[in-house]
C-alpha cells in the first residue's frame, strides 16, 4: 500500500528521463521541442502530486459545508501559470526551428552543425 503511494513519483522519474533521453539523443529539433514538453509535464506532475491531501478536495470553499479539507493550493497556482508560460516558450522554440529550417533547409541538428563547419 505504501509502495503504491509512491507510484506517482516513479512515473515522474520515468517521464522526466524519457524527456531528457529524447532531448539528448534525438537529432530532430521538432522532436527535441516535444521532448522538452514531456520533461516539463513531468515536473508539473511532481508538483501536483505534492499538492494532494487525503480526503481533500479541490481548494474551492463551498458555503455551508463545515470542516472541509483542501488540497494544497500553492503548487496548483505555480503549475497553472507554468503551463501557459510553457506553451509560450514552446512556441518561441518552434519559431526558432522554423527560421532555422528556412536558412539551412533541414531541422536535423547534426546536418546544421556540419553546414556550419563547412562554411
Amino acid at each position, binding site marked *: 500500500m505504501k509502495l*503504491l*503511494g*509512491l*507510484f506517482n*513519483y*516513479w*512515473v515522474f*522519474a*520515468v*517521464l*522526466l*528521463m524519457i*524527456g531528457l533521453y529524447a532531448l*539528448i*539523443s*534525438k*537529432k530532430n529539433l*521538432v*522532436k527535441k521541442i*516535444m521532448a522538452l*514538453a*514531456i520533461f516539463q*509535464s513531468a515536473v508539473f506532475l511532481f508538483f*501536483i502530486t*505534492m*499538492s494532494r*491531501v*487525503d*480526503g481533500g478536495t*479541490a*481548494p474551492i*470553499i*463551498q*458555503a455551508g459545508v463545515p470542516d472541509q*479539507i483542501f*488540497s*494544497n493550493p*500553492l503548487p*496548483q*497556482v505555480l*503549475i*497553472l501559470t507554468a*503551463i*501557459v*508560460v*510553457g*506553451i*509560450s*516558450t*514552446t*512556441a*518561441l522554440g*518552434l*519559431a526558432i526551428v*522554423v*527560421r532555422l*529550417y528556412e536558412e539551412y533547409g533541414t*531541422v*536535423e541538428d547534426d*546536418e546544421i552543425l556540419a553546414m556550419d563547419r563547412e562554411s
Partner: protein
Amino acid sequence: MTTLLIGIFLLSLLVITAVAIVRSEDLFSAVMLSGIFSLLMALNFFLLDAADVALTEAAVGAGVATVLLLAGLKLTPPTEARGRSLRKLSVVVIAATTLLMIYASFGQPTLGDPMAPAQQHVAPWYIEKTPELIDIPNIVTAVLSSFRGYDTLGEVFVVLTAGIGVMFLLGGGRGKPFSRLDSHVEEGLSGHLIPKVMARLLIPFILLFALFVQFHGEYSPGGGFQAGAIFVAGIILYSLVRGEGLALAVIPPRVLLWMSAGGALLYGSVGLAGILMGGQFLEYSVLSENPVTGQHIGIIVIELGVGLTVTGVLLSIFHAFAARD
C-alpha cells in the same frame, strides 16, 4: 482506493504515450500523441484534486499546443531522419539517473500524506486567511491574483515576451504583423460540410464558456489564463473552418497586438493604482474603502488583464505560424 487505481492506470497510459511520442518517426503522429498525452495529464491533474490546473492543461496542452505544433510542422519536414539516434552512453546515464530517482522516492511522503512538509508551511495560512482577507471561494484564484500577484505579473510578462519573440522571428515586419495576409485567401475547411456545421454550432458556446471561465473564476475553477486559452481555441477553430482571412477580419492584427500589451499594462497599472492610493505595489485592499471589496476589484481587473494578454499573445503566435509560407 479506486481513485488510486484509476490514477495508476492513467499514469501507466501516460508513460506508454510518452514512449510512443519519442519512438515515432512520423512527426505528425507524434504531435497527435502529444495531444493525447496532455489530455491524460489533465485527467491525472483532475484526479489529484487540481481542477484549475486540469482545465488549463486541457485547454492549453491538448488544444492550443497541438494546433501550434501542427502549424509548425506545416513549415518543416514531417518526418525524422532515420536511425543513429540510440547512443550507448546516454542510455546508461539515463537508466542510472532513473534508478537513483526511484531510490530517492522512498524518502518521499506517500501520495496524499496530510503530514507531508509541503502541507505544513504556508498552505494552511492561505486556506485559513482567504475567506477572511479576500472572501472569494476559489483559493487558487485568491493565491494566484492577490497573495502571489507579483509572481503572476512576472508570468504575464514572460508570456508577452515570448509572444514578442515569435513576432520578431516569424512576423512580417513593421505594419505587417503577419506575412501573407492580403496575397493569400485561404478557404480553410469550408468545403467540408460536417466540420463547418459543427463548428458553427460549437464556436458561440466555446466563446461564451471562455467568458464564463473568465468572470466566474473567483467562484469556480477558472481565471484569466484558462479563459484566454479557451477563447483562443474557439477563434482557432473559426480560422481553421472559415480560413485565416476571416479570422483576422474578426480580430485584426492591430487589435491583437494592443490586447497583448494592453493586458500586461492593465495588470501593471492596478499595481501603480495601489501606490497612488497610498498602499504598496499590487496591494488591492486600498482600492476601495472596504479592504475586501478592494481585493475583489483588484482581482477582477488583473484577471481581465491576464485574459487579454494570454488571448492576444497565443492568437498572434498562431497567426504568425499559420500565415507563413
